[in-house]
């Protein structure tokens, strides 16, 4: 056991403190940081890789291979965190303070750099080139995006229809259900049923929603109700009355994603110490007051997180549109346009430019999150 005398000494070294040392020291520190960041992923990788070659070549029954593979994979990652921490904790205090954060965040950052950041940078580069990625065309692709009618419709759908309706309803309904379920005896059943759509694969969901929206009132439930009640002719819900047909796709997304918001809100609500809410109730606060004065402030962080995530999901919405209408009938969104340009038209310049625009649209959301992040205080 090490003896840490004063908590103050445990404060991490600030940026200035590090910079005040010599350049050599700076170099060594950062080299060590990078190394330790890579240590876990790489050693894990090698260990897993060796294990897998072994597994691949073995002729054990599938079940055995499955169990071994799972233990091998999960155990390997866990063990290597233990080892690298054990190594770092052998160091003296100063070095440990410098290095240890990178044992924690390094592997994640390293993996993200390889799997997402590097492809993103490559994408940025390609977005300045022509459809075959050969000739530099500058901002031509971006100009194309903002002058194309089809893209304009996609932006309109994403920003004016999907985000306000889809994201809003998902978050509000998720919160509402989480709060109500928390007060109900049937919490588990209710939550399971709301969650269930998430578990249905997108293709399964498409089958049932296509059936609900079917134009034939003998098959399409919505038209069966509509023609039965109003006596009007059946309506092609996802095709006619543009742009409002988009909202019928938004409904599918809300149906699928509310479970997501609900689960996260539910977890957060469970984290509210019950003595606080009980105390308020004993003091005569109404349920509505408890909700707005205690719960909402307490889970504010979760609300921001869930909203951010759902907004980003909604910006990236793809499956629902692709499977239901394929972006026809003016229901295209940014991601389906990207997919179309990337895989169908094979216009890599335009496709990658769309991906970059998608990244740019999320900047406001990120600025807000950065502000939140600035408020957290590390040790």
């Amino acid at each position, binding site marked *: 056991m090490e003896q840490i005398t004063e908590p103050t000494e445990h404060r991490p070294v600030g940026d200035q403190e590090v910079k005040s040392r010599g350049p050599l020291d700076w170099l060594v520190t950062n080299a060590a940081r990078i190394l330790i960041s890579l240590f876990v992923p790489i050693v894990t990788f090698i260990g897993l890789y060796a294990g897998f070659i072994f597994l691949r070549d073995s002729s054990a029954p599938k079940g055995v291979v499955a169990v071994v593979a799972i233990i091998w994979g999960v155990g390997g990652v866990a063990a290597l965190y233990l080892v690298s921490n054990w190594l770092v904790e052998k160091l003296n205090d100063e070095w440990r303070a410098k290095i240890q954060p990178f044992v924690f*965040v390094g592997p*994640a950052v390293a993996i993200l750099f390889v799997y997402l950041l590097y*492809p993103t940078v490559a994408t940025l580069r390609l977005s300045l080139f022509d459809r075959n990625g050969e000739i530099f065309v500058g901002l031509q692709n971006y100009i194309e995006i903002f002058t194309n009618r089809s893209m304009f419709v996609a932006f309109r759908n994403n920003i004016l229809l999907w985000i306000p309706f889809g994201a809003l309803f998902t978050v509000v309904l998720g919160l509402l259900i989480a709060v*109500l379920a928390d007060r109900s005896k049937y919490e*588990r059943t209710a939550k*399971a049923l709301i969650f269930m759509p998430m578990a*249905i694969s997108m293709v399964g969901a498409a089958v049932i929603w296509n059936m609900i929206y079917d134009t034939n009132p003998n098959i399409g439930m919505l038209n069966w109700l509509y023609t039965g009640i109003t006596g009007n002719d059946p309506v092609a819900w996802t095709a006619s009355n543009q742009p409002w047909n988009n909202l019928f796709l938004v409904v599918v997304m809300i149906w699928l994603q509310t479970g997501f918001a609900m689960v996260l809100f539910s977890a*957060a609500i469970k984290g509210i110490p019950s003595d606080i809410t009980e105390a308020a109730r004993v003091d005569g606060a109404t349920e509505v007051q408890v909700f707005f004065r205690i719960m909402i402030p307490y889970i504010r962080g979760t609300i921001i997180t869930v909203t951010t995530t759902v907004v980003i999901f909604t910006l990236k919405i793809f499956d629902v549109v692709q499977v239901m209408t394929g972006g026809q009938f003016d229901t295209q969104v940014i991601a389906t346009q990207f997919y179309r340009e990337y895989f169908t038209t094979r216009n890599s310049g335009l496709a990658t430019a769309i991906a970059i625009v998608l990244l740019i649209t999320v900047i406001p959301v990120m600025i807000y999150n950065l502000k939140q992040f600035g408020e957290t205080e590390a040790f």
Partner: protein
Amino acid sequence: MTAQTATKKKRRISWGAIFVNVVLVLVVLAWSIPTFGLLVSSFRSRFDIQTSGWWTIFPHQEWVTVAEFTPGEEVDRDGVMTFEGVSGTFEELRAGIKDGSTQVIWIGNKRIGKVVVQQKEWTAGNHDFTLENYQTVLGGKTFQIQQPDGSTLTVQGDNFVNAFLNSLIVSIPATVIPILIAAFAAYGFAWMRFPGRKVLFIIVVALLVVPLQIALVPILKLYVGLDLNGTFLGIWLAHTGFGLPLATYLLFNYISTLPREILESAFIDGASHFTIFMRLVLPLSVPALASFAIFQFLWVWNDYLIALIFIGSKPDVQVLTQRIAEMVGSRGNDWQVLTAGAFISMLVPLIVFFSLQRFFVRGLMAGSVKG
């Protein structure tokens, strides 16, 4: 619920409980209708699904044929016809002439049509339910292939067991590994100070929005170089990479809001970051870990494209989504298997949900603040 308060308050609470439950039931019902429709459809044949609504299995009033006959040649189909004391033109008869609870209706065209007398009766639907869709998904299809020599070869399609196991092999590590890595990272971002903290964090959040399709080519290229394509390791790492931004972001949100006092007192007691993380932060974050685990598992389980790119769709490695998608046929001719397939593939995510749901318990934090 604290019931030992005054009667007046008790009544208010119970009214509140009723309100809560009624609203909840309504929302849950609305949410379950599509799922239920899919469930009913999964027990019906494709022809039934295509010709009548699933809700007709409920008791409803329906026209039931009590008599039918084919009008002879002598009937002038272009004039006014009289059957069973009801007369009308072809168009009127085709639409059905109603008289109270009976109607006379012409079914079919003028040439091969028939006249049917129907009565409105309550029926629970005379539907043929079938397990065929489930049998197809679980047991595989049987193909009769005619050979050039005239003989018939019977080929039994793959059943779902192998694909199911592959899905498990892919999903479990692809869920646990990112959570582990993200939990460390989230703690690092939340409670450790280091240069680049802000920049790295914002990169993590920004990567949330990257469409993963752009990563497929570079990653596969890397895998081809490392001979990683077609391995489970490759797909675990791919899912880890694609799931990490959200995992880190969600867990950061939770871990950063843990009460500072708890961690401070642990430091005073001489615990290291690692100890605090393992002994304190992880157990306290169980609800967040459990909720992310549910989502990550779901996405991996339901993923089709990533699995197709990184491990392919050969029978020995293909996952359940691929198996089911293939059963639909080259042109989607057997789409009805998707109904049963959806429920079969839903079972495991639901088990995961139910088993992890018990971690959403109240009072974790309350206990630890005091302790």
